[in-house]
């Protein structure tokens, strides 16, 4: 669809800066959105996409810059302000109220009133009408909870239309949808675009970006990289702009992928048919001593789910697990730890660091948890371990008594790594260890992983950056749609090979 850049934009954000304690989430970012276009906002995790959207919807106040909507400068103090300006958002978690009916969710806050009270019949009629405008017909009196996420999303979108929104923001709407649901959603989006609505679309899925968007804006590490027409930006250039060019730092690690692994005896860990209903189809995975197995796949493909089941963070429904060839039962983290398997979660803040405790206490936590509450790790031992790992990983600032929440993301990740390495594990599972951290820390962590695996530590390693996976791993397990679709030897692969594999492996017809 041809977008006329002479038309006045609906949204103009200029010089937007947002600061959080310890991190600058957005640094003088400019963003423009025009009516009748689908605009994709792209960037890795931690690039600032979510933050930019929350600034536009009144969730976060901006520390610098200006927002102009339809020619009028605006300050959004609450979400209601943004909605009054005609901006509606459908979040990934579909922020509706599952305890209410479909119709009520559509009309909430705008119910039809008569004689001082709500006229439910008319309200449900209106709701049904709005849903039909998007091509959806269903029982508006049914509970929202009884419908799939895909339908709930459409309901959320029709809610946006109730208020005659001129701007519709969709934040990662397709993460939980299957192919046919995505088609359905795209149909609705195209329809709205043709009616003149400006649509801002955030997604990880490269194919979908090219399928639906007219223009693309790329962010990286809180800064604007550029704005492009989708037809003028080839895929590999998009990826390059998203991940940047820090390859020089990491050449020394590239030899990791080609290291020979002895796979003669029993693997350190193996899982056969491990799965959980509704979460992950039964999958097989194993790893040998000194090996790095990478797990690649798009967001939502089941990577984290797989490793959580392996670690016992979630209880598997099925599967046979063996450690060093002997059957083992791993249904809670404690079981895994007792088998010298450790896990670093992708959500550092919610599942990793214990914010108010000091760096030293966080590092020692793994050891302490294993020993139990009665046998306290002595001060002398704690000091020694903490000093060793803070130096080895380069934790900055080098103050063991600082509350860990005050550290930057990269250093927090190092503290977590220290916690796990201090327990002398045999297998370490890393879920997105380099996500949202600065280049220097990224390089440090990758270097450490390569070094330790060369010394015999087994590593399972998830990363959205396929580059990274290829660089470090000897084998790559590939996931798609909550299923393992195959395994690759990483020697000689490049990113496009893997992307191709993800896109086409196992499909009957090539799209």
């Amino acid at each position, binding site marked *: 669809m041809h977008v006329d850049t002479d038309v006045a934009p609906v949204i103009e954000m200029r010089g937007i800066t947002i600061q959080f304690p310890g991190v600058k989430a957005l640094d003088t970012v400019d963003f423009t959105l025009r009516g009748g276009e689908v605009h994709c906002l792209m960037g890795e995790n931690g690039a600032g996409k979510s933050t930019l959207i929350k600034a536009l*919807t009144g*969730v976060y106040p901006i520390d610098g810059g200006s927002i102009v909507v339809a020619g009028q400068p605006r300050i959004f103090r*609450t*979400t*209601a302000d943004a*909605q009054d300006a005609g901006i509606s*958002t459908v*979040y990934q978690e579909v*922020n*509706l*109220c*599952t*305890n*209410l*009916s479909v119709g*009520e969710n559509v009309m*909430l*806050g705008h*119910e039809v*009133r008569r004689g001082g*009270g*709500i006229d439910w019949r008319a309200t449900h009629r209106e709701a049904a009408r709005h849903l*039909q405008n*998007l*091509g*959806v*017909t*269903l*029982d508006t*009196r*049914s*509970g929202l*909870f*009884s*419908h799939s996420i895909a*339908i709930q999303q459409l309901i959320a979108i029709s*809610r946006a239309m109730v208020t005659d929104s001129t701007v519709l923001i969709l934040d990662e709407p397709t993460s939980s949808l299957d192919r046919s649901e995505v*088609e*359905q959603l795209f*149909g*609705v989006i*195209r*329809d709205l675009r043709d009616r003149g609505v400006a649509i801002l679309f955030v997604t990880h899925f490269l194919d979908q970006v090219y399928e639906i968007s007219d223009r693309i804006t790329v962010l990286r590490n809180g800064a604007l990289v550029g704005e492009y027409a989708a037809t003028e930006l080839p895929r590999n250039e998009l990826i390059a702009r998203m991940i940047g060019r820090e390859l020089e730092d990491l050449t020394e690690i590239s030899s990791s992928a080609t290291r020979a692994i002895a796979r003669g005896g029993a693997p350190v860990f193996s899982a056969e048919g491990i799965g959980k209903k*509704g979460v992950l189809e039964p999958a097989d995975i194993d790893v040998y001593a000194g090996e790095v197995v990478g797990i690649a796949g798009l967001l939502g493909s089941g990577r984290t789910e797989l490793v959580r089941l392996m670690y016992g963070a979630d209880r598997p429904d099925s599967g046979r697990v063996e450690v060093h060839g002997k059957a083992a039962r791993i249904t809670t983290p404690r079981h895994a730890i007792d088998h010298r398997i450790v896990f670093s979660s992708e959500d550092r803040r919610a599942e990793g660091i214990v914010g108010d405790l000091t760096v030293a206490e966080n590092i020692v936590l793994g050891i302490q948890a294993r020993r139990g509450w009665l046998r306290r790790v002595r001060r002398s031992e704690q000091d020694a371990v903490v000093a060793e790992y803070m130096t080895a990983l380069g934790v900055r600032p080098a103050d063991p008594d600082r509350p860990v929440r005050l550290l930057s993301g990269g250093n927090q990740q190092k503290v977590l790594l220290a916690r796990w390495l201090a327990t002398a594990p045999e297998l370490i599972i890393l879920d997105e260890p380099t996500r949202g951290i600065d280049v220097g820390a990224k390089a440090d962590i990758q270097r450490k992983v390569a070094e330790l695996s060369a010394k015999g530590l087994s590593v399972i390693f998830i990363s959205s950056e396929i580059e990274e996976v290829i660089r470090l791993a000897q084998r790559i397990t590939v996931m798609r749609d909550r299923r393992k679709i195959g395994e690759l030897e990483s020697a000689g692969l490049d990113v496009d090979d893997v992307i191709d594999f993800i896109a086409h492996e196992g499909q009957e017809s090539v799209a």
Partner: protein
Amino acid sequence: MTDPQLTYRPARVGAVQWFVTFRSRHASWIPVFAALLILIAMFAGAQYYFGNFITPRLISTLLLDNAYLLILAVGMTFVILTGGIDLSVGSVMAFTGILSARMIGEGVPALVAVPVMIIGGALVGLLIGVLVQYFDVQPFIASLVGMFLARGLAFVVSLRSIKIEDPAILWLQSTRFKLGDWYITPTGIIALAVVIAGVLILQYTRFGRTIYAIGGNEQSARLMGLPVVRTKVLAYVISGICGGLAGLVLTAYQGAGYPLNGTGAELDTIAAVVIGGTLLTGGSGYVIGSMIGVLVYGTIATVIAFLGAEQSWKRIIVGSLLLIFVVVQRLIVARSSRRS
């Protein structure tokens, strides 16, 4: 070009489909039905055991003896629906009661004293709401503060009970409107009126629907642009107003104000509301359910009186019933979240 119309027609037919639709549309009524069943079972059991249990006189008395609790339960329902809790209601009831008794005793006309009671209750509710919303205090701590404040103020007003001589107030309790063997007093009518008002507000006003939305998912409600802060504060104000009205009803019932009234009434109220099918996590429940919960509570007390047992059993039974309901609610929630 939009995809072909997506219609979601029911997959099954007949009675099964009716049940599935019913469950989807009215899932939150199911706990209420459970409560109703319990009430019916209790009545049936008592009738069988004692003989003349189900009489118009007993049922009329049931309503009137617990009229104050019914009013408190309506207010509490509003608060619990938003996911909060109000521990001050018993003390507010006592405070407003003794305050009005003293005012009337000193010559203030009932027409002035009654609105003052209601405003007094509303102010305590407002304080709690403000503490919760603007000072980040946890709801139950804020309401504990309200409870302490109101209880203390009750004793400030008077250290001992004050009899009411005002004919207008006494009329509220002594008059009986008879319908055959059934009867009701103005206090009972007030209680029923509060119930009806509660139903209408929750069902037919945007404010009421916002209450449900907040209880369902406060974050979503906020993102949807609903006035979350104002609504939560108002919920506590309503609970406070109900506290004031309950004070009026109880004072009329006893013919006196008593600063120690309602000790523990907040727990009885919460128990009644939970037993009546309102989820403590918020977002699901009905005023009608709370009314059934109050009737269950009253029936337990009546049965205990009939049995001649000590009243301390009442609290134990109510507490146990509350526990069972909470555990069952928790198991159902755990099972459905595991499924999703």
